[in-house]
């Protein structure tokens, strides 16, 4: 009964917010944006490799083929850049020196990931696209470990 009275009295006083957040209006970070772009790179790489060039010299068929190929290449290029940008944001804005102490391979991981994004633009390499996905998975694991949350890795495709 006394506790209830105490609670009532306390609740009658004004209360203010004491922010204990990371970055005032909290910065929202999630490695899933990197993952979606990297998945698109892998998917476009597969599609480019699977695309069959038309037989004969039908101009229309060639135009359709060239158009499709150009679109796949253009999307691969664009999504590789997005994957790189998103990874760099996590690296430079989210991760802090304390994280580096716990994960000494952090800088290497992000550096290699950025390099792989470039390699995926320059080449049509299934190996590099898959390696990029593996790195993004590792980033996902480290990121959610630092948040103390158990978020399972999944892919859209």
């Amino acid at each position, binding site marked *: 009964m006394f506790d209830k009275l105490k609670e009532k009295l306390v609740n009658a006083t004004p209360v203010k917010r004491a922010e204990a*957040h990371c970055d005032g209006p909290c910065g929202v970070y999630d490695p899933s944006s990197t993952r979606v772009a990297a998945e698109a790179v892998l998917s476009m790489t597969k599609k480019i490799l699977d695309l069959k060039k038309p037989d004969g010299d039908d101009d229309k068929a060639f135009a359709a083929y060239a158009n499709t190929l150009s679109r796949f290449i253009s999307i691969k290029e664009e999504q590789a850049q997005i994957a790189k940008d998103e990874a760099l944001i996590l690296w430079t804005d989210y991760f802090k020196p304390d994280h580096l102490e716990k994960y000494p391979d952090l800088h290497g991981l992000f550096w290699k990931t950025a390099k792989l994004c470039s390699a995926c633009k320059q080449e049509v390499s299934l190996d590099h696209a898959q390696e990029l996905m593996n790195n993004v998975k590792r980033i996902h694991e480290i990121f959610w470990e630092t948040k103390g949350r158990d978020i399972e890795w999944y892919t859209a495709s």
Partner: protein
Amino acid sequence: MSELPDAGLFEIALLLFDYRMRYRVEGGSMLPLLREGDQLVVDKNAPVEVGDVIIARHPFIKGLEMVKRVARIDERGNYFLLGDNPAESTDSRTFGAVPIECIKGKVVSRLR
């Protein structure tokens, strides 16, 4: 101060008569000492020393008040603030040491 006493009747009386302020913690930058939702009693007149947990106004973001710990006071008399949980904290590592005007008060106890 690695532990925070629970507020007694006297503290609550001071709160009712406006000699103390009540704050609610949002976020995890002061873990393990303070958890999200903890309610704090703050004394705006208490002297602030190194090691104290304090409420400070963000030097650049209007209206934002933070709970941090005073890590050191520099040669100009500015307060270098850190979260107890550095991985989840934005503090003086980002916005630098803050002048005394930014310190709103010292956290003296917790309401249970």
